[in-house]
């Protein structure tokens, strides 16, 4: 169990701190863009781009943080919606959406694994990964259309593992009564990780990280993000996990580095998919960002990685009621 003081959504000081800090950063960013616009040093295109991004964040942050503050069911529900939106973009980009039956099965798998999270039934939650993979592997056999079998099955299983099984870990965390500060930390840390990589890359410059995969990323940006994110996650993590076996500098730093590395890996994973397809953005839903996946790619691998790290030392919801829907 993650330690948590009694009380409502804002009982933990870290929860309050993250929400206040996020709002403050958003306000400051708005002010900075305003000053930049007034100074006349930014061209109209850059101004428009900055305002679009800022506006998207203003809409997005309440949708991300709100459900976490509202409670367990809201969190699992929001993660489910996020999974489905991510899958939709992936399916349309890869062409998997044309496989009607298989696509419906991926959706069923995503709904099932999130239901297991909502039910707080860990056995079913983990059983669903191989079970769904098997279901996806056999689903199109009765169509008697072996041509393209490997491609469509592989695309479907990758989709389920990334957007279903992977992201569902974030929702499952809400089964621990003390989930709020941790989930909020992950949501904000992966965003900060992106910003840190971008800023350090611009300030320091230098060698490209993987130019064929993502031409704008630099080695200095990647390392800078690791330093910034690790520092932040380790310090806030020390407050969240005080008194648990995880509250040890070595493990806290490992956790911070894991958030940063897994976050950047998720980003590069999506870049690889986009490069292979020859497209720039996965969608157009978020002005200034692209698609939902372009924004949330960093969470895909962070959620399961941190889940198991924290699970190993602390555990999730070990004293909370299990099988709250299917139990008797």
């Amino acid at each position, binding site marked *: 169990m993650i330690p948590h003081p009694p009380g409502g959504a804002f009982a933990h000081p870290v929860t309050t701190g993250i929400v206040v800090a996020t709002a403050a950063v958003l306000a400051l960013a708005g002010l900075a863009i305003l000053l930049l616009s007034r100074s006349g040093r930014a061209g109209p295109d850059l101004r428009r781009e900055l305002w679009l991004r800022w506006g998207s964040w203003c809409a997005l942050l309440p949708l991300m943080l709100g459900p976490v503050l509202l409670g367990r069911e809201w969190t699992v529900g929001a993660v489910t919606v996020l999974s489905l939106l991510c899958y*939709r973009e992936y*399916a*349309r*980009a*890869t*062409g998997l*959406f*044309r496989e*009607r039956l298989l*696509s*419906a099965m991926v*959706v069923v798998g995503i709904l099932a694994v999130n239901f297991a999270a909502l039910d707080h039934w860990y056995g079913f939650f983990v059983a669903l990964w191989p079970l769904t993979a098997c279901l996806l592997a056999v689903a199109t056999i009765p169509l008697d259309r072996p041509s*393209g079998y490997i*491609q469509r099955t592989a695309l479907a299983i990758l989709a389920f593992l990334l957007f279903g099984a992977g992201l569902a870990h974030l929702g499952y965390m809400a089964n621990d009564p003390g989930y709020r500060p941790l989930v909020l930390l992950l949501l904000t840390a992966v965003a900060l990780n992106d910003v840190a990589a971008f800023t350090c890359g611009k300030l320091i410059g230098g060698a490209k990280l993987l130019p064929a995969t993502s031409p704008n990323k630099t080695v200095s940006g990647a390392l800078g993000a690791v330093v910034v994110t690790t520092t932040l996650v380790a310090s806030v993590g020390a407050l969240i996990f005080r008194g648990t076996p995880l509250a040890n500098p070595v493990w806290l730093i490992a956790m911070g580095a894991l958030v940063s590395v897994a976050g950047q890996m998720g980003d590069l994973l999506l870049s690889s998919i986009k490069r*292979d*397809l020859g*497209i*720039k*953005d996965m*969608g*157009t*839903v978020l002005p200034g960002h692209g698609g939902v996946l372009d924004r949330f790619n960093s969470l895909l691998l962070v959620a399961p990685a941190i889940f198991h790290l924290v699970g190993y030392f602390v555990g999730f919801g070990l004293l909370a009621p299990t099988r709250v829907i299917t139990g008797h």
Partner: protein
Amino acid sequence: MDRWDLRPARDLGLRPMERLRSLGREAGLVSLATGGLWRRGVRAWLRAAHGFRVEGRENLPASPPFVLVANHASHLDALALSAALRGAAARRAHALAAGDLFFANPAASILSAYAINALPVWRGRSRRDDLMTMRARLVEDGLVYILFPEGTRSRTGTMAPFQPGLGMLVAGTPVPVVPCWLEGARDAWPAEARAPRPGRPLSLRIGAPLHFEDAPDGRAGWQAVAAAAEAAVRGLAPEG
């Protein structure tokens, strides 16, 4: 290792409203589900309110692509033709509808795209590129087009001459054109009425498919296709 055949959706990267109006719009699970529900609702309505009957269903090609052409006197026409289709043909059927009416605003666009599965044709300014896109998609994506080559709803019930646009879609391709005659649609929902009038009978007669593989893909060929389709549709009209 060879590259996989990864084909992003034709409408990828379009903003939501642009996508609804795009000729490259491809249906996902949500569109298929809403379209399926809409078709079932329309079929039930046509049966219950207009005693809708279909004659000559065996003339429909076994699988897409094909083009359905018919006389046009009512908004019920496209609904009736799509209600007569089943299976893959029903899912892949696009009614080619007047953009200025069916895609005039976001609400109309959502209904036209998600329920009717219409593709917009812009009267007077449909460009050659648009027709070429539709021609290519018909074969590549195995679609069904529901088309009223008169170009507009008849106010009198008399069928107007067919426009050559039909020819531009199919001349020189193996795609069959299926002539249809709708009887009773003008009484059931005339152009001047706001809503259909229940109790008026509606029936559809489907004729044998026409093939234009050998028709030249040029002005003369397009005119010939339109004339042949017009004659076939007129031939299905009841005597008198």
